[in-house]
């Protein structure tokens, strides 16, 4: 792991490092004593401005040894830790390695806390106040960046609280979404649909499915083109959770509402991705998060 463009710079940096340390040692040796003309007045033999002389006020010898110790220490350090150009050091220590070790340790320490969540059902975890508090913190740290602190999402990022699911809202499906991630893909269909006029008509038909404001003439003209869409969104436009195809008949508009937004989507398509979290989170953490997300649309306890 080296960020140097070529080997020369690595050697160059290592050289400067070593020469610097050795220069410190040389300086110490050269200035530790001096030959002077004996004059019995205990000066350093240093005279300037004709008659100004420096009194020799010796430092304790242990001070000099401490200097030597620092030099020895720095050489040992350079053997053990990275510091000589791209040489990684005997210990193979790195920041990332240290981070991973710390994370491992932290996860180990957390394991007893999470132990019970590995076997509990999602419904049971959702009833557990402590688990929900943990879920809240996990959500804030790992999910809120996209889905929002209130889990209601925003344009392009699904709302997790409205009971409307692209890939299914059963616990195991939520679990799979979090662990493995999802890819949502709407292919560009402009060519299959036909002229821009056709696309616009189709958009009005899609608007009509959810009883949104639309031009009924254009919608009836676009109806025939919906066959292309039906493959994924179903003949009735109710979507398909196996494919992650959205329901077009409800009033949730993940990628924007209105004629233009739908025209753009048909014309250009879209790739949307929910990244897989299993590399980042432990299985128990994913269980807790699953229950937390599931509880948004399955209110329990006092509510029922």
């Amino acid at each position, binding site marked *: 792991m080296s960020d140097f463009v070529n080997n020369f710079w690595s050697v160059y940096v290592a050289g400067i490092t070593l020469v610097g340390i050795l220069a410190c040692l040389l300086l110490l040796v050269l200035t*530790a*004593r001096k030959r002077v*003309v004996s004059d019995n007045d205990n000066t350093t033999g240093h005279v300037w401005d004709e008659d100004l002389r420096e009194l020799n006020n010796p430092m304790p*010898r242990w001070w000099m040894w401490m200097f030597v110790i620092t030099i020895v220490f720095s050489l040992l350090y350079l053997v053990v830790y990275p510091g000589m150009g791209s040489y990684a050091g005997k210990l193979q220590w790195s920041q990332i390695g240290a981070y991973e070790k710390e994370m491992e340790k932290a996860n180990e320490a957390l394991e007893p806390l999470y132990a019970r969540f590995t076997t509990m059902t999602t419904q049971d975890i959702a009833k557990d106040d402590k688990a929900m508090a943990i879920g809240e913190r996990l959500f804030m740290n790992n999910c*809120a960046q*996209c889905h929002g*602190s*209130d889990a209601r999402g*925003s344009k392009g990022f699904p709302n997790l609280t409205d009971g409307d699911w692209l890939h299914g809202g059963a616990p195991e499906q939520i679990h799979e979404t979090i662990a493995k991630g999802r890819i949502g893909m709407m292919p560009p269909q402009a060519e299959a649909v036909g002229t821009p006029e056709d696309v616009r008509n189709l958009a009005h038909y899609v608007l009509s499915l959810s009883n949104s404001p639309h031009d009924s003439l254009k919608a009836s003209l676009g109806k025939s083109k919906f066959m292309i869409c039906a493959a994924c969104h179903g003949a009735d436009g109710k979507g398909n959770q196996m494919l992650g195809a959205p329901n077009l008949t409800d009033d949730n508009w993940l990628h924007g509402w209105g004629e233009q937004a739908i025209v753009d989507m048909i014309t250009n398509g879209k790739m949307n991705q929910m990244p897989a979290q299993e590399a980042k989170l432990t299985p128990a953490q994913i269980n807790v998060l699953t229950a937390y997300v599931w509880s948004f649309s399955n209110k329990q306890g006092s509510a029922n």
Partner: protein
Amino acid sequence: MTSVNEEKTPKKVIPIQPEPTETRSFYEAHKRIYPRSIRGVFMRWRWALVVLTQLVFYGLPWLEWGQRQMVLFDLGARRFYLFGLVLYPQDFIYLTGLLILSALALFLFTAVAGRLWCGFSCPQTVYTEIFMWIEQKIEGDRSARIRLDQGGWTFEKLWKKSCTQLVWIAVALWTGFTFVGYFVPIRELGVELLALQGGWQIFWVLFYGFATYGNAGYMREQVCKYMCPYARFQSAMFDKDTLIVSYDPVRGESRGPRKKGIDYQAQGLGDCIDCKLCVQVCPVGIDIRDGLQYECIGCGLCIDACNSIMDNMHYPRGLIRLTTQNGVAKGWKHAQILRRVLRPRVLIYSSILLALAVAMVVSMSMRQPLKVDVIRDRASLARIVAGGKLENVYRLQVMNATESPQTYSIRVHGLDGAEVASETEVQVLPAETRGVAVRVQIPYGAAGTGSHALLFDIDAVSGQGKVSEKSVFIVPR
């Protein structure tokens, strides 16, 4: 060389340098100082402060406050218990304030009375004092110790030296243990150490124990002379009206031995009998008669020593005394010296110190045991929701800094029609931080496009904590 060349080269005059004849080293082995014990006013003051500071230091961790230790700096949990207060890293500003206050207080009494801190209450001085006292009780006073060190290894030397070491190590370990007891509950620490558990705790106890043993047993005055920066910048804090330990050369010179009761002044002698007692008692091994030196820690033991000699000789006291440079030079009386205490430097230090102390007390008394950070969600700027409302989402980091669970109510003001649409009450466990998502709504069209100031009011239902935090509400185009 040809003659042509000789003509062309200009003559250079080279001064004759004498040949160096000896090698001089700029380092030398440390010479041990054997301070002689002395009785007197300053010695009593020193001991009083040793006792006082160590009573506080060794005693404080054992005192309890309710269910916990009275003073405990729990680094692991990042909580700092100070009597009735619980402080968090967020209260770091108070530590800053305390350090600034300490520094200013140091400047103030250094300007007035020299190195009081060094001579009387610096841990280095205090522990050195304790270790020297142990040494002296076991091995005897100055001359006995010198004899013991220079003599060969007899049985007597062996047991005396081992005894000293044992007591030193015991005191050092207890000091290390006490120090760690400020960071780990001391009673549990004691139990753990007896069972030899807790690797890091053992390490730190040994570490601070060793540091105490090394510094107070062996380094002693060298810490002050070679390591401590304070000695180096004391001259920036002194002026001619600062009280310092000074020898009065006008009275003292010419120094020299004499018989008691003769008319020494007729022989051209001053009051100093050159007994060197002031040098022997000095813990940093200097001769105060050479004038003010950076090594002098202002402990005043030479004053005690000299006064005892002066009493003995029936001369007036105060040949070495606590006075100012002006006082010595101009032969001022006490009253004149004291009048100069209230000079601009001192007044400025005092007023800044007072102002800061007041600010510190006021801010401590106004401190809320509740901390809130408001962070707008950046993923979703704003959204329109059912009922023709415009919504912004915020994350509130609510930190309960009390020792009991709290319920907080969340309200907003500062923007017409704004209200909290999510839960308006949030429970936070003692000393916990909770991130809460808060949705704020205004009727659509109630405010123009752009960002509007908005204030979150978080109040503890129990009345323990009340905070207002600023944020913005964004209305998109």
